[in-house]
């Protein structure tokens, strides 16, 4: 495995291996010195063309805990602002002699195109509405930490702006591969026009599903991608789809409440619910570092010792 571009490229055994690795690296991150020399001498570039806080920091932390050298390419202060094209930007970075590029881009497929231009391993850290595979890995990892590896018969609802969500596209593939039954819940205007080929079902009503869910994942409304023109008001959205305290009370006590972040408290999730006992949102962030360590090690360190 040279690149991680999409969950669709993974086999079940790839996924199992990455989840096993994530578990090993999670224990590393909990040590007093949370660092291993696995990728010493390797260089990982973080190349974010789109705003990000948690994913970028999570990848950089993961790389550093593996002892890789990390170069941060900040688009805001770079030659991109001077009109440089994507191909020239990545060719320049590649010419410096690097091993992996972690790419986020507002356009679907940008990481895949980069694999055709340079030799380094490419990790997709989110491309447009297409894929965010490491988010799916950390989400699957978080659920399996609580429920075991086999998610057969477990019911997971992903609620909100599915249409614009690379997280939803990736999560559906990863969770269904592990056996979970995923239901996408949103007003029809926030679902893709067709779910043909998606291994999941959909619903327009959240309330009837609540008592049976093993996990519920709330998605942010992506105003920057035209979502706000697709329903009348945030007030109406919250009334129909927000995980309010009243709705959260109808969940089973062991149901997990998840959010890929960033959260809009009071819109898709009530503040008290986000901070409540069933929320694993903080765990997701912690697990994100371990999952990304797993990916970087799998792409760059295969053959060596894990810890």
């Amino acid at each position: 495995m040279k690149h991680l571009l999409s969950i669709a490229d993974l086999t079940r055994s790839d996924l199992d291996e990455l989840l096993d690795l994530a578990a090993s690296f999670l224990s590393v991150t909990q040590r007093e010195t949370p660092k291993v020399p696995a990728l010493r001498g390797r260089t990982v570039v973080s190349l974010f063309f789109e705003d990000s806080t948690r994913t970028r920091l999570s990848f950089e932390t993961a790389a550093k805990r593996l002892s890789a050298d990390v170069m941060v390419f900040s688009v805001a202060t770079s030659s991109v602002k001077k009109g440089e094209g994507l191909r020239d930007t990545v060719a320049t970075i590649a010419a410096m002699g690097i091993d992996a590029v972690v790419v986020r881009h507002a356009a679907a497929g940008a990481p895949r195109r980069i694999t055709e231009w340079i030799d380094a391993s490419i990790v997709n850290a989110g491309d447009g509405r297409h894929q965010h595979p490491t988010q799916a890995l950390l989400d699957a990892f978080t659920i399996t930490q609580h429920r075991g590896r086999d998610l057969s018969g477990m019911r997971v609802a992903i609620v909100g702006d599915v249409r614009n969500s690379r997280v939803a596209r990736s999560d559906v593939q990863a969770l269904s591969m592990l056996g979970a039954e995923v239901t996408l819940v949103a007003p029809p205007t926030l679902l893709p026009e067709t779910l043909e080929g998606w291994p999941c079902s959909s619903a327009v009503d959240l309330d009837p599903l609540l008592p049976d869910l093993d996990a519920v994942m709330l998605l942010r409304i992506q105003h920057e991608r035209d979502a706000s023109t697709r329903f009348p008001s945030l007030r109406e959205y919250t009334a129909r789809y927000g995980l309010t305290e009243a709705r959260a009370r109808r969940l089973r006590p062991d149901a997990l409440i998840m959010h890929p972040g960033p959260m809009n408290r009071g819109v898709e999730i009530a503040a008290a619910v986000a901070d409540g006992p069933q929320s694993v949102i903080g765990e997701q962030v912690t697990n994100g570092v371990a999952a990304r360590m797993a990916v970087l090690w799998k792409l760059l360190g295969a053959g060596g010792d894990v810890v």
Partner: protein
Amino acid sequence: MSEFVIRGGEVVDASGRRTADVLVRDGVVAEVGAGLEAADVLDAAGAIVTPGFVDLHTHLREPGDEDAETIETGSRAAALGGYTAVVAMPNTRPPLDDPTVVRAVLAIGTEALCEVVSSGCITRGRAGEALAPMGELHALGVRVFTDDGSCVMSAGLMRRALEYSRGLPGAVVAQHAEDDSMCAGGSMHEGAVSSRLGIPGRPGEAEAIIVARDIRLAALTGARVHFLHLSTAASVDLVRAAKRDGVPVTCEVAPHHFTLTDEACATFDPAFKVHPPLRGAADVEAVRAGLADGTIDAIATDHAPHTPETKERPFEEAPPGMLGLETAAALALTELVEPGILTLEQALAALSWNPARIAGIDDRHGRTVAPGAPANLCVLDPAATWTVDPMALASRAHNTPYAGRTLRGRVRHTVLRGERVVLDGRATR
């Protein structure tokens, strides 16, 4: 006096097919028959001699985007593709909405390797708000009026354009039928593939809605409407019914819409990005059937050169469009004639005499190969195979979606007003 004979080919035109030599003298067909002699011989053995092709839909990019194509390079690509005339689309910078710009294009076009026919805008600046000076453009010879690249969204303004065109003999209003409000932000066909890729779509209904509307406007006004690059089954059905009802509509299909589907976009290669987008397999079948039953009058390339740097942007950010002039005839032969969907005569009709009639240039293009006809001819070797190499194309740009594809059918010679502009597969200037 210049004189040569095109010897040993099979002549195919609107009147049928026969084995004959063609004697060309002073830019005109002088004689057609057996055993013609001239000092100068153009070999057509094993080949088809046909009226030169006519492209209703070429983006020459000049003025404004000469780094992607010029009238010279585009006309060379056209000649190599067997075309003796192309209709230059108006979305240049500045656009072809002003007599001065049209005059300039026509003037440069006199040096080109094919006849450059200027289209003219329907609306000023292609902005869809006020009529362009259609009468002034008509006086310069413009017959095809279009805002191509943009759809005339206002039904009221489209009606006015159609009514006005009735006062301009030979004029046709050509619509890029895609409802903007349904396509905003869309980069590919809306369907299962776009849903999976997370790329916003352009639904097929956006085309059919405008086609349905403009058929009603053609019926209301009695003016001719031509639909550019139709791509969906629903649109073909609408045009079929309209023609049955006697509404004065014609339409064209681009080669990519009868050869490629939206699955190609899963590569994220912007070579496959085009408006209207590559559709599903059922739509491809429907446009093929539309060509076969005559609903679709013409094959038009929508030749749309873009520089490598713009086509190296990510899919959603890259400009739409693909090259077409040098591959269209071969694709028609390989994908339509060889599988038996069209006869050779049908394919040539769609490439030559039908579009010549629509563009109002059938006095000099697409004519029966007979004494007195201007010598605008193509000699096509239907058996020759070749592999598409983007860097070997004559266009300034390289954005063909057929890189590496092996096609059957290659232009051997192209004759423009008696001049051999392509000889043995090479442009002579």
